[in-house]
């Protein structure tokens, strides 16, 4: 049996590893710039699907289905991103007689709509952020809007139905601001998305982002897992995830997990999915949305529970019954933390810093999992998300895990490109992070106060070390040129490299 992995990078590699462990063949797809990517090298088979831009390769349903046909793959795993939450792709797989490793196209579509998902949660009796029941258009009267706002309570947020990335969104602190804010949000959404429908929602103060992973099989069983906390966000992007959350009592965990399972059951959810909640200062939680796919941060759940989610995705897709012990799924055995290491320069506003990875040295030893899609010699492309790796660490306690994280970050050396490692080294020294006193606004606020200060400052000693290193490397180069030890014409590729010569005495 062969599985086509319709993705690239670390998640394609991670899914392939699960396939190999289960004895399935693996089929990779790749764009121009990914020819020598790790996911191609580890696959049993690999097929070129087009130029580097995702719209011409990884987002081309027709090309991916063509590869499935040519390779004889019978399962398709979409990973996350790209086509993972595209119901058309799910449907196209089904129509082509392929097994899509994910929920049904119908459920992808249903839970993909923010308002439909919210309705489903309400119907399942799960708390949602108080707000208008439905979005409203230009026909809503000012009086109705004002009375709805009073019912919801201030501060509140006006959100465009089709919004995203902060566009079509306005925070309203007082009744006076309400109607003007609704008007600007509407007009912004209308011009940006062609849809001016908006809704009102209470603004949660100091919200924490807590989510519940779950698995559902085709026999009616839904198993919820211990929560993940993903409140460390930069511009609404998660950068650190952990499990368990320091903010949750066991009672709240149980209640939240039960709510998540109720929503999933109510829509007949199958395969892996995640329900995101906001948690307020009083440990009240509210349904936020559902992600109908494997999450980037799934490894922290795998670590703390010992359950392999991708194995189960494949087994569920093949019709197996879930045999996971629900208590094991809901009981953290340890504490795990994930950092997303990106090819970005944290000292220049997290500007992407793609390029050639000249050499690579990754942490190992106890308590480390490195999910990576990049090798030495690979040029991180400019066309996609510039993630290098997800570094996951664990320990008996959160304190142990953080100590290990620092050790692992010190060992992580991606030579030739700037990475977010110095940022994480800084973050793991912050008292709020260490004490678990944070919410989704924490990091953006903190970064604002730093005003672009450098995260890892090269002090006088470091400057001196760098000076010595550069002088000596220049010496070696000059020395080699003089003595003519370089590049003997009969020697090999590796022998010609400075490394090779350098290490032969």
């Amino acid at each position, binding site marked *: 049996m062969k599985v086509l992995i319709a993705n690239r990078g670390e998640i394609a590699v991670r899914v392939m590893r699960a396939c190999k462990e289960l004895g399935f063949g693996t089929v990779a797809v790749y764009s121009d710039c990914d020819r020598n990517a790790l996911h191609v090298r580890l696959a049993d088979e690999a097929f070129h699907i087009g130029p580097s831009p995702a719209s011409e390769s990884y987002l081309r349903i027709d090309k991916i289905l063509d590869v499935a046909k040519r390779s004889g793959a019978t399962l398709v795993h979409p990973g996350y991103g790209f086509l993972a939450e595209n119901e058309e792709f799910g449907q196209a797989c089904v129509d082509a007689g392929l097994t899509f490793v994910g929920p049904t196209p119908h459920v992808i579509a249903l839970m993909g709509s923010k308002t439909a998902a919210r309705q489903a949660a309400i119907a399942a009796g799960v708390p949602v952020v108080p707000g208008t029941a439905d979005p409203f258009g230009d026909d809503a009267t000012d009086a109705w809007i004002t009375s709805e706002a009073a019912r919801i309570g201030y501060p509140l947020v006006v959100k465009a139905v089709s919004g995203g990335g902060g566009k079509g969104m306005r925070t309203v602190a007082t009744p006076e601001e309400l109607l003007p804010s609704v008007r600007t949000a509407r007009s912004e959404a209308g011009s940006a998305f062609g849809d001016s429908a908006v809704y009102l929602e209470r603004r949660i103060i100091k919200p924490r982002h807590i989510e519940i992973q779950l698995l559902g099989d085709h026999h009616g069983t839904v198993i919820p897992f211990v929560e993940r906390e993903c409140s460390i966000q930069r511009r609404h992007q998660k950068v650190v995830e952990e499990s368990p959350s320091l903010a949750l009592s066991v009672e709240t965990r149980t209640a939240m997990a039960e709510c998540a399972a109720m929503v999933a059951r109510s829509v007949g959810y199958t395969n892996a999915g995640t329900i995101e909640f906001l948690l307020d200062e009083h440990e009240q939680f509210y349904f936020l949305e559902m992600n109908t796919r494997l999450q980037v941060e799934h490894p922290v759940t795998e670590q703390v529970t010992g359950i392999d989610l991708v194995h189960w995705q494949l087994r569920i897709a093949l019709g197996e019954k879930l045999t996971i012990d629900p208590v094991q799924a809901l009981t953290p055995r340890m504490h795990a933390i994930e950092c997303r290491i990106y090819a970005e320069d944290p000292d220049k506003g997290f500007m*992407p810093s793609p390029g050639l990875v000249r050499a690579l040295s990754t942490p190992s030893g106890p308590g480390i999992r490195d999910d990576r899609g990049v090798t030495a010699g690979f040029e991180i492309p400019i*066309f996609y998300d510039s993630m290098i790796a997800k570094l996951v660490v664990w320990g008996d306690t959160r304190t142990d895990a953080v100590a290990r994280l620092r050790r692992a970050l010190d060992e992580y050396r991606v030579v030739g490109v700037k990475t977010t490692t110095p940022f994480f080294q800084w973050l793991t020294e912050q008292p709020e992070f260490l004490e678990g006193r944070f919410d989704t606004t924490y990091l953006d606020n903190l970064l604002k106060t730093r005003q672009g200060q450098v995260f890892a400052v*090269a*002090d006088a000693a470091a400057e001196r070390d*760098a000076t010595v290193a550069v*002088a*000596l490397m220049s*010496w070696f180069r000059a020395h080699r040129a003089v003595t003519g030890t370089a590049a003997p014409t009969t020697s090999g590729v590796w022998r010609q490299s400075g490394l090779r010569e*350098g290490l032969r005495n």
Partner: protein
Amino acid sequence: MHFEIDINERTHKVSVEKVGATGPAGGAFRVLIDGVPAAVDARRTDLGLSLVFADGRSVDVALTDRPGGEWFVQLPTADVSAWVDARRYQRGESGGGAKTGAQRITAPMPGRVVRILVKPGDEVAHRQGVVVVEAMKMENELGAPKAGRIKEILVAEGQSVEAGRLLVVIE
């Protein structure tokens, strides 16, 4: 051998002398940095150099060479850029003509220049925005690496640039 190495806007004068048997794999050196001596055992590694100083301190350094005499130095505690014999490199550089102390802003990645925020002769403060490059669907504002006066602008708005392309010279 003697080198001039620019790091963090400071120029260090360094001399390197080998001590005893030293091959291309490494060996023992006496290094003078701005007149201060240091004894160091240096070996080449897959990442760059392993340094062990006379007092036992061990530092694992990753080194990447870049165009224009730049070295990108990745220490365990911080990353820095250094220029070896910057004057020599700058002399040979087309369109530059900058003297020591001049700062060049280069494109950190392939992209498109969307806005130029200064004109030649403008005084700019440290970190003040100078040019905006769009890449990977994000606009990235490149700031002045130090306070100074805009000497030269080598690109136009809308122009596509490759990584490392010299955009602006500040003196």
